[in-house]
């Protein structure tokens, strides 16, 4: 089950400080990169819950993000529903879709689970690509952002929108921790370690997997609704399996099954992408080499590497600092 430790708190504080610093000091381009990182971080948290804590490696989370994005766009722009309700509707719809996919795929394992989720993702991509209601290949534009004018916040301002995404990421992180620490999260942990044993303990394994997949889908849907508002335009490419693959790369690069690692991975991936793409159009090759190095190092991603080197040292220091001083021995003058 997921537990925080001193190192995880330390990395979270560093990430939060860096995000706030960037949000308050960066210009337009820097804020766009920050927002891209934050939305990707929400998506990879969703993926880490199912892949890292449930052993369900999904190749349809890109499509789930796309479902969230298209649902928000259609509900707000086409159906004329108020953006906050459209956003809630998009998250709920993606959750239901993910629950159904999880319920069907939960009976398969390993490579078959991956292929089943890939098939669902590609079906969604093909449908959106062809259907006129979704704008086909041209996609949909004119997507409005939430109106927080009531609170004096203009989300059309890049800085405000980046801070809004940061707040959403914080809420999602908290929700992910709560899910993993709940009875459902414990059951998921049991299922990942020994599915047959959980069945013999009277647990409906498929239901646990489907419920967690549904909750993870809701988070992916939120990432999609935010992505649609960020770019204000969406296209079928958002549902492509390459988006799911990229999310999986980010989770592995950061540290599978750690929650904190994927946040590190999202930041590293987006920064690398922007820095390297300015130097060479073959930046994917460089990212590929880095990913191979991370996998071959046997560390659990960048965060796993940090944890292996400094985790124990930091834990010891925190334990020393928080240990109550021994009461001084009474000096007997008898």
């Amino acid at each position: 089950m997921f537990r925080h430790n001193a190192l995880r708190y330390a990395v979270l504080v560093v990430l939060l400080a860096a995000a706030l610093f960037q949000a308050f000091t960066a210009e337009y381009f820097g804020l766009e990169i920050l927002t891209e990182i934050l939305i990707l971080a929400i998506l990879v948290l969703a993926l880490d819950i199912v892949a890292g804590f449930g052993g369900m490696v999904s190749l349809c989370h890109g499509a789930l993000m796309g479902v969230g994005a298209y649902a928000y766009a259609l509900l707000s722009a086409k159906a004329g529903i108020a953006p906050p309700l459209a956003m809630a509707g998009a998250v709920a719809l993606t959750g239901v879709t993910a629950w159904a996919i999880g319920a069907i795929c939960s009976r398969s394992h390993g490579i078959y689970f991956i292929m089943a989720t890939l098939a669902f993702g590609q079906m969604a991509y093909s449908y959106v690509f062809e259907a006129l209601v979704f704008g086909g290949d041209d996609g949909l534009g004119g997507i409005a952002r939430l109106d927080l004018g009531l609170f004096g916040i203009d989300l059309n301002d890049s800085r405000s929108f980046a801070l809004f995404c940061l707040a959403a990421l914080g809420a999602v992180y908290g929700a992910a921790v709560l899910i993993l620490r709940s009875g459902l999260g414990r059951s998921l942990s049991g299922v990942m370690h020994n599915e047959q044993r959980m069945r013999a303990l009277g647990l409906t394994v498929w239901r646990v997997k489907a419920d967690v997949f549904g909750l993870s889908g809701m988070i992916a849907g939120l990432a999609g609704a935010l992505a649609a508002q960020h770019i204000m335009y969406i296209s079928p490419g958002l549902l492509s399996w390459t988006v799911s693959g990229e999310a999986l790369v980010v989770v592995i690069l950061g540290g599978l099954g750690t929650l904190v690692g994927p946040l590190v991975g999202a930041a590293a991936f987006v920064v690398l992408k922007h820095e390297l793409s300015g130097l060479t159009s073959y930046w994917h090759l460089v990212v590929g080499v880095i990913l191979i190095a991370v996998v071959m190092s046997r560390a659990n991603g960048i965060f796993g590497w940090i944890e292996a080197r400094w985790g124990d040292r930091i834990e010891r220091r925190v334990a020393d600092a928080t240990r109550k001083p021994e009461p001084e021995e009474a000096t007997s003058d008898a």
Partner: protein
Amino acid sequence: MLELNAISSGYGETQVLYGLSLVAQPGRVLAILGRNGAGKSTTLKTIMGLLPLKSGDIVFDGNPIATRAFDVARSGIAYVPETRDIFPSLSVRENLEIVAKRFGGPRPDWTMDRVLELFPRLGERLDNGGTQLSGGEQQMLAIARALLMNPRLLILDEPTEGLAPIIVKLIHDKLQELKRDGLSMIIVEQNFGFATALADDVAVVGKGQVVWTGSAAEIRADEDAQHTWLGV
């Protein structure tokens, strides 16, 4: 309470049980004995729905037993496997709660407090992770977790395997306590002394069939059967 009528089962293409039949009576302890590879653990896994029943039938409390493991568990049969299967990423408390919350009901026979009273050692280790427990503690946790399912029948596979003699005695005393409380049990065990001291009835399995049945006192007295079927 539980009847196995001419059951056949195995792993994939490999058949292990060939028409095995036995009966476990309510309120009594049945020991299933036999040499390695005789089919003892396969029998338990087939009862639990963890291996497919190829032929024959299993009746529990007058009804055909469920075929899916979680239905079998919910029908009132708890199983402590040979491997104990403690969840390593969960603490002792979480390993217990994962079951207690599912089988608690309004007035359960077995509660967290009661299993911790039975195994006080677990109470001292509640926040320790599954991997930080000794073999004996893991066995106590596995039995406690099974009891929290409030079973009418408790099935144990090799409960003393790999345990120190002092822990074997402790497990024996606890199982005797459960027997005195009237809990029906089926136990598969290589330790002849342990099994026959605990059991009322004995079924010896050889080559996938029951080759001897009788009381524990009878097999203790039957040196021929011990030599022929158990190599004692």
